[in-house]
């Protein structure tokens, strides 16, 4: 049988030995006994540029952009100006997505209180999040360049407002590979509707599609086509794959093309996934206390279920888990998108499970090297949108400031970073641009965002375009 050519053999050996040595040095295998380090393949675990603080990421994206003013960034001064026209100097020459004319200031209808030993001020809408205040690194000075959902979401995840660039999760698996070769390295879970940016948000762009986010679905096949057709048992499938392996093996011998070997191993991986994915997705076996903590109901499609799945995924060595929960677009055109009913409902859906995820990771010793990120694509105005004279309370899109929180994975605990002005219109101190956040996330993963590049159409591209600075104030 024609084996690998000598050169290929040595290349692989080096990669394999390197990866194994690295795994032992960096403790890559630390997440779980189930995780395996593969010796080769495009998703084999690779060394970071420098020792990493975080080994995996769970990004909870609140699609539609949650209102920072009603959740994270208390503005007593806004209450004093409630109902008054927004100051001329702030809004002169500004372009809003929907607001026309001079908008009026709108105080938050919710109370803020101090929480934890750190005394972080958080809204009454987030009681469970308040309970983990001492774990959080809350950034109140985020800002972005885009104020429409799809471009701004693409901007957060790909560094560009235009579709077609690789997503952060793709960049991360491209840079670091993944630790479990029986599962994809970049998994996407969606609840309450698809995000505005569509699948472009987890596209691998010009990177090989093996780095594309794989959506695990709550209904139907958890991974597309993972189930055998009706009338084909697992035994029958094994029999067909045995025949396929034998025939492909003969071809490998006569053709000598290493691609055949890769394909043979990918079919075996597919077979393993047919078992591992349903096992992973079945949360029925989790103890009652866990369901209680997250608020999960097995078999139901929900953000809570997705949070629990996220924990099960990182536990198994998946590198990047991306959740989307849509519905934060609180314009106030009706009760379906206002601050009083709709925003409260979104918080009920997400608050408990988000906090449970952080606590659960902590209890399992995973929080230390798992970075959890919570936030949307932009912020919302301190003014009432009142579109077409709507009497429902709502806020327009606002790119100039918004809040996000992070936990675990080498970020400061119990910290508030940055601030906005008295009315919550502009960033006042320590601005963090979206590209800075991306640079910081990559830094925590042990990668220099200026060096993680890929050549396409004649130039080297990177997640942060030609911008971005690591924010030292966020690092523990």
């Amino acid at each position, binding site marked *: 049988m024609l084996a690998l*050519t000598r*050169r*290929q053999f040595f290349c692989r050996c080096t990669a394999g030995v390197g990866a194994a040595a690295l795994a032992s040095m960096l403790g890559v295998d630390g997440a779980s006994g189930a995780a395996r380090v593969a010796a080769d393949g495009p998703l084999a675990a690779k060394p970071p540029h420098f020792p990493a603080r975080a080994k995996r990421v769970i990004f909870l994206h609140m699609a539609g952009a949650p209102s920072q003013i009603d959740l994270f960034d208390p503005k007593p001064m806004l209450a004093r100006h409630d109902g008054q026209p927004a100051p001329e100097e702030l809004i002169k020459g500004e*372009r809003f997505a*929907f607001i*026309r004319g001079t908008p009026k200031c709108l105080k938050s209808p919710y109370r803020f209180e101090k929480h934890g030993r750190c005394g972080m001020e958080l809204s009454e809408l987030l009681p469970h999040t308040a309970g983990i205040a001492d774990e959080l690194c809350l950034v109140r000075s985020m800002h972005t360049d885009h104020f*429409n*959902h*799809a*471009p701004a979401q693409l901007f957060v995840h790909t560094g560009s407002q*235009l*579709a*077609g660039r690789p997503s952060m999760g793709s960049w991360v698996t491209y840079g670091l590979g993944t630790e479990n070769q029986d599962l994809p390295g970049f998994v996407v879970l969606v609840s309450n*509707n*698809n995000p*505005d*940016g*569509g*699948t*472009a948000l987890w596209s691998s762009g*010009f990177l*090989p*599609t093996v780095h594309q986010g794989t959506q695990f*679905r709550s*209904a*139907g096949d958890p*991974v*597309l*086509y*993972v189930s*055998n*057709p*009706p*009338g*084909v*048992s697992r035994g*029958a*499938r094994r*029999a*067909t794959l045995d*025949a396929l392996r*034998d025939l*492909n093996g*003969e*071809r490998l011998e006569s053709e*000598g093309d290493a*691609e*055949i070997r*890769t*394909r*043979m191993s*990918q*079919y075996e991986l*597919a077979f393993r996934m*047919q078992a591992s994915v349903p096992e992973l997705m079945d949360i029925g076996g989790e103890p009652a206390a866990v369901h209680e903590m997250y608020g999960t109901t097995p078999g139901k499609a929900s953000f809570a279920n997705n949070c629990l799945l996220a924990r099960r995924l990182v536990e198994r060595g998946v590198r990047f888990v991306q959740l989307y929960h*849509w519905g934060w677009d609180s314009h106030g055109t009706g009760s379906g998108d206002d601050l009083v009913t709709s925003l409260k409902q979104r918080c009920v859906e997400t608050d408990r499970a988000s906090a449970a995820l952080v606590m659960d990771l902590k209890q399992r010793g995973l929080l230390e090297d798992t970075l959890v990120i919570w936030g949307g694509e932009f912020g919302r105005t301190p003014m009432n949108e009142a579109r*077409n004279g709507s009497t429902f309370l709502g806020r327009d*899109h606002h790119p100039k400031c918004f809040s996000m929180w992070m936990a675990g994975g080498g970020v400061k605990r119990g910290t508030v970073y940055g601030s906005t002005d008295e009315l919550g219109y502009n960033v006042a101190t320590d601005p963090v641009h979206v590209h800075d956040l991306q640079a910081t996330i990559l830094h925590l993963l042990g990668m220099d965002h200026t060096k993680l590049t890929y050549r396409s*159409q*004649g130039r080297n591209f990177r997640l942060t375009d030609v911008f971005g600075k690591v924010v030292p104030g966020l690092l523990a």
Partner: protein
Amino acid sequence: MLDAHGMLVLGEGDVASALWQTGGRLHPILVHFPIALVALAAGAEVLSAVMGRRGRARGAGMPMLGPSVLARGCLVVGAPAAGITAWSGWLNAAYEHGGGGALEMEGHRWVGIAAGAVALMALVAVLAVSWRATEVGMRVYRALVVLAAMLMGAAGHLGGSMVYGGEYLFSPLRAALGWERAPAARPAGAAAGEDAGPPVDFAAEVWPILEAACIDCHGDVRKRGQLRLDSLAAALKGGKSGPGVVRGDPDASQVIRRVKGLDGKATMPEDADPLAPEQIEVLERWVRQGAVWPETLGATDTGVEERHWAYQPVAGVREGAEGGVIDGMIGARLKAEGMVASGRAEPGVLLRRLSLDLTGLPPTVAELEAFERSPTDEAWSAAVERMVGSAAYAEHWAGWWLDQARYADSRGYEKDQTWSMWPYRDWVIGAFASGMGFDRFTREQLAGDLLAEATQEQVVATGFSRCSMINEEGGVDPEEFRVNTVVDRANTVATVWLGTTLSCAQCHDHKFDPFTQKDYYRFFAYFNGTPVETEDLGSGETRVVSPEVRVAHPMEERWKAEAAAIEEWIAAAGEVSEDHPKRAELRDLKGKLERGVTTQVMREMKTPRITRVLERGSFLSPGEVVTPGTPSVLPSMGEGARPDRLGLAAWLTDARNPLTARVIVNRVWARYFGRGIVETDDDFGTRGTPPTHPEVLDYLAGEFVRSGWDLRHVHRLIVTTEAYRRSSAAGEGARERDPENRLLGRGPRHRLDAEVIRDQALELGGLLSREVGGPSVFPPQPAGVWGHAYSGEQWKESEGSGRYRRGLYTFWKRSTPYPSFVAFDAPSRQVSCTRRPRTNTALQALVTLNDPVYVEAAAGLAGRMEREGGEGAAARAGWAMHACTGRRASGAEVARLVRLYEETLAGYRANTGEAERLLEAARVPEGERTPERAAWTLVANVILNLDEVLTKG
């Protein structure tokens, strides 16, 4: 001061070692004294010896015994100077060259030391013979002084070679006499690789430093100090201050001197952080080891003055038989590399390869058998003609173009609403079917609307530019997205026709290719004259207002007939309630008839928009006004050219344009061989990969233009080569020598494209619909793949033939493309795609094993095996292998499939319910749902998943 090996141990930073170092640096100055003095001494002594002999011969008195006074004087000064010089040389080597290394340096060192030692011995001798002269003493002394002079000369020459290069002394003479050799890599560098530190990997270590730190200013564009560092030739040639790189000699290389900040000049890179010591060390080591620079990196031009190859005119047309010319060129290269090409593939495999390449479909069993009976060149040519004349050819190559045109059935952003664009797709199919010349193909797509008395077809063709995405999200700034759209149109044309990265010049002058930002906006200006495509309705609502035309299309006749049939049915049925589905269907049809078939087109505004350079690419920072024009590095448009898209189209397909023909034939070639002659088919610039076979590229490009831009001529030239018809199997030697088959010593072998994999399975399963054109269809797709908060559009599964149409008719939604195509690397078509990646993943395996389309195809193939495959399991398995791979399977292969058949048959016989379930899911008619059919379905499933079937081999 000396370590165990006799090497100097260096101090660092203290005054004493600085003094030592300075002493070392005196070496090049000191060296001249002993050479001159000892040479003079030797000369004087030789002269006096000759004079003495002549004197004796003439018998003029006593022979003069004793040394020449001049020689003695010279030696007294010169010999100690030689010793000091040798010592300073040692120091210099230690401080400046890391203790030694190169062979040349070692030669210089030891010859120099020997010269010093012999000179000192000569000094002793001269003092001795001055004291008491004897015949023997004089002979020894004279021998010593001559030897010292010779050694000194040799040491001096070796030292000079290190500084100026070995060829320095005689090169002008050699050049004048016509003896000049091609400058070879200096053996010193190459041979001394081991002594000169660990070998440097240029691509991994050196090139990134040059790219990051040097080429911005010392590249094709800026050439500061007339120095370029983006190719070896340019670096060797150097600039104002001398050679950038002197092979083997870091000290003489300006690159090294300047990054170290020597010579009192600014440390390079200027205005940036200096290089790290490790980086400087890498560069020095690289130079010392001979400055090895592989051809595949950097600019490919060989001199500063010479233009990049891709901007030079296409080389002239060559004479020769079709195919023969290309094979000659490929063969010459293989021969030069000492490689032997594989023989022809077997006929059935070849015909499958040809059919998949030209039509995207496998050959029929009858076609296979006919060609196997008579695999002659005539039969081959006949097959080629049959295929390029088929509708399947037009569809398959239209698909190739639609990736580049970023054709899709939805607008792209947020809601990603459906739009009617398919008449443009059908226009492309029609253009390929009619064999339209690529010049006309270009003209009508880019400027059909501007043609005098443009036909409806010509206007539909302009849909090419209208395939740009439109953002209709609430609150967008229409101007911002209008600019984005124009940018996309300009970039797409630059990439698709010119293979350039002009888009890099959107925000600043191109860093590596000779395009300025102004060039960019002049190109942009061609596309800037169309009206806005969205408008802000106030209160954040946006409406699409883009130009579209209504097309008279046979579809309307079908709708009319369907509507009439329903009306008839209602009339016959008597009372039919208003909410009856038939009435809804009728309303739907009537609506369609009222709107008609429309498609998006280009339309120029009456008053052209003024185009300005956008600073940093931002629509908020307009700058200088520019007029439409083409990049200045390329041949100009000529007098009287129209300053509009029509003029641009004419320029693109002008025979003098060096890029279009090369870029297009290269992309055609890539479809056959899996890789272009220029691998970066979207970047023919200095940073792209150089062509593996430049002469083949130019030959094909020349033929393409000469034939009247006939793509079918290019196809014929390629598929009639031996290179194309070789077997893809390769022995270990060949595969190891050329793992990626860049030299084309064997036939192409690569995975099929997404649509071809699906079309092939449907065709082999006897299910493929051959209907051409019409609205896009919705074959089965798992529920829940679509779904968007602000879009109510649903994937409504097509019934009937719509389930089995060719892949290019599948509805292409940009935000959520057809999932089984995505798995096989189909692009989303948000932007132009000229080259799909080719991955090999487990998700692909799940698609072809379990996607219902493939299960139906397997059941279909199973039915054909039972009907067409003859009697007996072995015959049927063999028949299917032949139909699917084009070759006759071996006995072992057939036996393995029969074994699977028997195993699974036993299972299905024991559990007929399972067979029923499988075949029901596979839409097999009720009467045919037998355990045998189910078992054959699994066998067919295996065959359709063979690597060989998913691959064009």
